[in-house]
C-alpha cells in the first residue's frame, strides 16, 4: 500500500492545519464516530508563522523546527539540562539537534506507526490513537503548549524566568495545562520527555550526547558496559572507562 493510500481522507483533513501555527491553537476533535471528519481546524492555522523569535537565530541549522519551535525546544532542553559543573547544557549536548533530526527522519514520519482509521478517542489503555505522525504530533502539541504559555504568562516560553519555566513544565507534565483538544500531559510525558532523554543519552552518532558528556556525567562506560567478564572484574568498582566511554564510532 502506498503512503498516499495509507493516509485516509479524514487524516488529510486533520493535517490541513493541525501542524504549524504556534500562535493559533488547533482545535482537534477526535470523533466518537469513525466516519465523521475527526478534526476541524481554523483556516488561519494553515499559514506558518515566519516571524523569527526576538531572541535571535537558533543555535543550529534545523531541518524540522520553525524558528518559534526552535526557540521553544532550545529553551526546554536548556532548562531541563542546564550547564553546570557536571556537564554542558542541553543545547551544547546536542539535545535540540537530536530532537529536530529525529522528527525530520524516519521516526518523526511515523515509518512504522499504524496510521489508518478508525480514529477514535480511546481509553488511556488503548495507547496512542491520534491520526498524527510523531512529527505532526510534536508540532501540534508544541503549538498548543506555546499558546497556553502565552495565555498564562503573556510571553513565549523562551522568555520566561527559570522559575516560571520550571512551573510551566511541571504543570504540563502533571496535566495542569489544559488544551481543548490535545492531552498535553500525554504529549509531554509520552513524546517530548522520551525524545529529550534519548537526545541526552543515546549514542553520539545520532547527534545528541555530544562528546559522550552525558555518559561521562553518570560514569557510564558506553558499549563495553555489558562485557560479561567485566561484570565480575569491576563489580562494586567504578568502570575504568567511566571517564572515557566508548561509543559506536570508537569501535567501527
Amino acid at each position: 500500500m502506498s503512503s498516499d493510500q495509507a493516509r485516509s481522507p479524514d487524516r488529510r483533513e486533520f493535517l490541513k492545519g493541525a501542524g504549524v501555527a504556534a500562535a493559533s491553537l488547533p482545535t482537534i476533535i477526535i470523533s466518537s464516530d469513525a466516519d465523521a471528519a475527526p478534526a476541524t481546524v481554523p483556516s488561519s492555522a494553515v499559514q506558518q508563522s515566519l516571524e523569527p523569535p526576538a531572541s535571535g537565530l537558533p543555535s543550529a541549522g534545523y531541518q524540522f523546527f520553525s524558528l518559534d519551535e526552535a526557540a521553544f525546544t532550545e529553551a526546554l532542553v536548556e532548562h531541563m539540562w542546564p550547564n553546570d559543573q557536571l556537564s554542558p547544557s542541553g543545547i551544547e549536548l546536542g539535545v535540540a539537534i537530536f530532537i529536530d533530526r529525529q522528527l525530520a527522519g524516519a521516526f518523526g514520519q511515523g515509518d512504522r506507526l499504524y496510521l489508518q482509521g478508525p480514529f477514535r478517542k480511546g481509553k488511556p489503555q488503548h495507547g496512542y490513537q491520534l491520526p498524527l505522525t510523531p512529527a505532526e504530533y510534536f508540532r501540534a502539541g508544541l503549538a498548543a503548549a506555546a499558546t497556553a504559555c502565552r495565555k498564562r504568562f503573556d510571553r513565549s516560553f523562551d522568555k520566561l524566568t527559570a522559575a516560571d519555566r520550571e512551573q510551566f513544565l511541571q504543570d504540563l507534565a502533571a496535566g495542569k495545562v489544559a488544551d481543548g483538544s490535545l492531552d498535553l500531559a500525554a504529549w509531554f510525558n509520552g513524546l517530548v520527555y522520551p525524545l529529550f532523554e534519548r537526545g541526552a543519552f543515546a549514542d553520539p552518532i545520532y547527534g545528541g550526547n555530544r562528546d559522550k558528556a552525558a555518559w561521562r556525567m553518570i560514569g557510564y562506560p558506553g558499549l563495553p558496559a555489558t562485557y560479561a567478564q567485566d561484570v565480575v572484574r569491576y563489580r562494586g568498582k567504578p568502570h575504568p572507562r567511566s571517564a572515557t566511554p566508548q561509543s559506536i564510532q570508537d569501535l567501527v
Partner: protein
Amino acid sequence: MATILKEREVVIVGGGLSAGLLARRLVPLGRDVLVLERGGQRSAAESQLPSQRDDLRWSIYRGTTQRENVETYTLRHTPDEDALPMRQLVSFLPGFGVGGGASHWNGLTWRFQTTDYRLRSHLEQRYGKAALPADMTVQDWGVTYEELEPYYALFEKLFGISGKAGNIRGEKREGGNPFEPWRSEEYPLPPLEPSEAGLRRRSLVTSRFPCRPRMRAAPIPIRTA
C-alpha cells in the same frame, strides 16, 4: 500477477526460531524444505559489535520487531467495547526478519511444569471435578513432560543455556530453582555471574526473610541463552 514457485515438499511459513529447528531436523532426512519469511535477511554486521549495541536503533525503535503498519492487532477490554487498533506495540513484540523473535528475545527458556501437560487431570485430582465449570475448556495436552524432556535437554544444548539445576531426576539441588520440573542433567553451561545489582538484591531478600530459609526467597540464577 502471482509468481508460481516450484512445488516443494515442505514449506515452513515464518522464518523464526521454530522454523530453524524444524528445518534442522528435516533437511538431514533428505526433505526438500523452503522457509518463507516476510521480513528479509539481516546482515551479519547488524548483529555484531558495534551495531549490536545501538540501543536507539534496536531497543528504543525496535529494529528487529514487527512493524505496526505491516501488521498489527486490535484491542478491547470488554466484549461490548469498540476495538481500536494498536498503533504502537509495546509489550507484545513479534519478530520481523530471518530469526524472528529469536533476534530480540530475552534468552529466557523456562520449561513448563510437569502438571501443565495434564492440567485438567491435575486440577480435577487436586480440587475435585466440581471445581471446574462446565464451560471451562482446559485440557490435557496429550503429550507428557516426561516424553518431551529429552527435547528440552536437546534445545538447551543447542542454545547453550546456562543455569543451575534445582531438580535432577527428582533430587533437589542446592542453589538451583527448587520449583523447576525435574531435568535429566545439569545445564549445559554454568549460571551467569550475578551483577552488582543482583548481589545487592539477593542480600536484601535474604536479610529480609532470615527466619524462613526454607522459603527460598533468595534469587536463583536465571536460566538464559
